[in-house]
């Protein structure tokens, strides 16, 4: 079964919270190298691991993982800025 590439926001979410890979790995119960593979999108996590990240970051799975390239988080939250006069 050919695996498809999944995209994620693990790196930006970890950076926002000032966490090291080791700290996130310890919370998720995985090796820190696995965090690296996840952040480089070279590994697709299991449902269990994806849900664990949801518990750690207090976000739904679809906010962190996607089968399509993800927009920048700031754009998701604030949307594109309306131009003046329109």
């Amino acid at each position, binding site marked *: 079964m050919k695996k498809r590439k999944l995209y994620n926001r693990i790196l930006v979410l970890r950076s926002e919270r000032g966490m090291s890979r080791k700290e996130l790995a310890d919370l998720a119960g*995985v*090796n820190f*190298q*696995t965090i690296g*593979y996840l952040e480089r999108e*070279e*590994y697709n*996590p299991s449902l269990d691991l994806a849900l664990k990240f949801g518990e750690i970051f207090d976000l739904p799975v679809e906010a962190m993982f996607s089968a399509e390239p993800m927009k920048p988080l700031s754009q998701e939250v604030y949307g594109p800025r309306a131009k003046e006069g329109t």
Partner: protein
Amino acid sequence: MGMTKQQRRTGVIVNHAALGLMLAVWYGGPVAGWSEVVRGVAALIPLVVVGVGYYRIHLATGLWRLVHARLEDLDERQVEMTMLAARFSYAVFSVLCLLALFGAAVAGNHGVVPFDAILPAGLLYLAHTLPSSYLAWVEEVV
């Protein structure tokens, strides 16, 4: 001291080539008319290379420990990688063993003593290190 992926791949090639060279020298030496001393010394040199490679590629990287760890101590990605490594290693090792047995059978049929303990020792080393060699080859970061 971390090794790059390319360095690890080179190390894997050198390590296994040295093992093959050692076996070739050991079994080819008498055919070439070498004395026991020359044969022993000539086989010792690649054996040292094998030993250094074993330490640098398999032990110092932690890969040997990874493939020999208990399943309960591995995370999901490590389980996946070690299973892939075992699958690859089984395929390669079983073919090599069968070839060795076949060669021994053919040699035996022609009145030649097939092999001594050196070939099984080499196969033991291979069995021990093929999974970590696979990981050294494919993993981006070790």
